[in-house]
């Protein structure tokens, strides 16, 4: 039998342990711990809404018997604006328009690190008057600003495996779908054409660019040395281990992170955790030198990474740059 998913993934759970931290000549104790409660949660008056998602691939709202307003999600059995007149369930459409431009989460909580970047918008579905909060993706790669705005038409997509919760659905822009997909009620995630992860074509480097890149590499090496030597900066990559294959038209190398230390190894690494590709190695150097974030270079498509989930490593590199810059500046401010 297939192993069922646990409500808390095993990897999140720390081992029973403690450590001692020395602060100004005194020891302090830090204890691994958790505060947990399990639930068999009553879905109550929302049961029909969630069962309709799970079993029928339908979206339900509620209509007020007095004012006729249709609320989706169905809030609630009685209308708060009409002296609590009763409401009745109604089915609403599966396309709608965004009430406002949706935010995009690049830095997520520990439970959503592997799902970022994602959008979360307020979708007013056809036949509804209020907005449903919904997770938003594009099928065209990493979600960047401008793809979805106020008024963008969005289609609801159902996960193939559904358990009767709000994460059973998400939205994509209707413009990325075929007319048949856009029309189809209960469209499944597996029916979408998710653009395959493809390494960008970086083109050829000129001889001059190759020569220049050698100088940049030396600069980069000096900066990484400074980072590894800084106690403050290296905290950003404490207990972290990654080998990144960096590819540029002019040069390839490995960027190695190993528990507070970072360095580069010339030549293509034998194996790597992920690939980072950019036309100009300066983009990476500037990011590490705290002149523009690496995150933003990805958002602006100046730098490409092979795995979305490695945004977590990119954030650590951005912090590393910031910590080093801050240490230098505070040192100067304090005199």
């Amino acid at each position: 039998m297939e192993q069922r998913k646990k409500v808390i993934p095993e990897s999140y759970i720390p081992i029973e342990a403690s450590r001692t931290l020395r602060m100004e000549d005194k020891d302090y104790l830090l204890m691994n711990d958790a505060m947990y409660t399990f639930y068999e949660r009553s879905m109550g008056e929302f049961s029909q809404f969630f069962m309709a998602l799970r079993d029928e691939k339908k979206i339900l709202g509620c209509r007020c018997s007095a004012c006729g307003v249709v609320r989706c999600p169905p809030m609630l059995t009685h209308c708060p604006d009409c002296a609590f007149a009763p409401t009745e369930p109604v089915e609403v459409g599966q396309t709608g328009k965004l009430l406002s431009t949706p935010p995009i989460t690049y830095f997520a909580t520990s439970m959503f690190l592997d799902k970022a970047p994602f959008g979360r918008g307020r979708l007013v579905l056809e036949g509804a008057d209020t907005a449903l909060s919904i997770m938003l993706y594009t099928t065209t790669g990493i979600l960047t600003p401008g793809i979805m705005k106020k008024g963008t038409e969005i289609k609801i997509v159902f996960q193939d495996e559904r358990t009767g919760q709000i994460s059973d659905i998400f939205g994509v822009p209707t413009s990325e779908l075929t007319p048949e997909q856009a029309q189809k009620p209960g469209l499944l995630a597996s029916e979408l054409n998710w653009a395959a992860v493809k390494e960008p074509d970086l083109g050829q480097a000129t001889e001059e660019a190759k020569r220049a890149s050698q100088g940049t590499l030396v600069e980069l090496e000096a900066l990484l040395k400074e980072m590894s030597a800084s106690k403050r900066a290296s905290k950003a990559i404490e207990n972290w281990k990654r080998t990144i294959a960096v590819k540029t038209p002019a040069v390839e190398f490995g960027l190695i992170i190993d528990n507070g230390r970072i360095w580069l190894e010339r030549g293509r690494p034998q194996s790597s955790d992920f690939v980072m590709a950019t036309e100009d190695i300066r983009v990476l150097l500037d990011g590490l030198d705290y002149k523009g974030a690496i995150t933003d270079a990805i958002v602006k498509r100046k730098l490409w990474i092979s795995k979305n989930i490695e945004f977590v490593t990119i954030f650590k590199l951005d912090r590393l740059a910031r910590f080093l810059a801050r240490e230098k500046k505070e040192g100067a401010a304090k005199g």
Partner: protein
Amino acid sequence: MAKKKSFAARKVGIVGASVTPFKGRWVEKTFYDLAQWATRDALKDAGISPAEVDAVAYGIYNDIFERAAIPEHPLQGIIGLPNKPGIRVTNGGATGIYTIASAFAFVASGMYDTALVLGVEKATDCYDFVSRSATPEVIKTIAWSGDSFFEQKIGWTASDSYAEVILAYMDEHPGDLKPEVTAKISSVLSEHVKTNPYAQRQFDQVTPEEVLNSRYIVYPLKEMEICVYSEGAAALVLAEEETAKAIAKNTGRPVVWITGVGLSNEWSFAGKGMNHWGRIYSHHVAAQQAYEMAGITDPAKEIQVVELHDAFIQQLEISMAEMGFVPMGRADALVDDGLMLDGGPISVNPSGGLLYCGHAVGASNIMSAWAARNELIDKGKHRALVHGTGSTICQYGGVAILEHED
């Protein structure tokens, strides 16, 4: 719109205040010790003993941060107030302002003559063992505050919910909240913090360019436009008129009166008849109530100091507009017209705000009141506004008006 607010039965003043240092992490102290420390210093500032305190209101935002379900109960004895009334307030980010309002009501109503306002928060013990850093677990802990049926499971965070409101505002006012203006405001606050020795980032001055270059956390919010999580405590001593005057005579520090209080929580779901999307109506309503109580008709002319809950710089700008300091859609006047720049008429967040002093949630707005009181007394200014916000989409709003008569 809320009904006309009844006025306080008795005059209430602040006669003592304190903050502990705000730090990224207090490994050396539990929240017990932080709470006791702030209490000790506030009572010392007022020159009174615990025996002279009639009641306490605790501001502690999140049980999960403190890792205990009723985290205030151990504090009652620790702060020397056994067998006295204690109420714990938890209202999201607005916990501090609501705690001040609760203690104010205790004293204004005539129920008690003095009350302690005590806010404390430990946040960064939360730790994500996968990414081996605190922040993803801290924001996860706050993310248990999203709607549990419809939003928690799709990645709701405090940042993305505030970003929703900010983007909706920007849809309506595309020329406002210019990136160079939000960058300038962050830079200005980083200069203010220099004189706050209790701040987490006292020596972290940034240029507008550095803010512009900082990374996106949640579009459209950049790292240096977002407050930092902090640990610490803050306290105020409130007293009714005669007691306040007697204490002030003793300490030589004038009473700062609380002359207006306004509170408002709006709908948390969006759509027809449910919300004014792109507005922060709770801040507008809370401010109007407080102005009415304090007799203020033109806040931009009558208020000199604003300690505003700057969870995000863009929200700071919208909140200033909602509270009537700048027109809606023209919030950039804060910088473009120099309103909050050096030499301008309004000092905004002399403490450095939650961005630079730090956001120790339950203590934050109380720290703001501490800073506003100092600004009024030390700089001889007349009137200050203290603001708090919280919950999803800035749903909660609270405003207090402080006045210094000398």
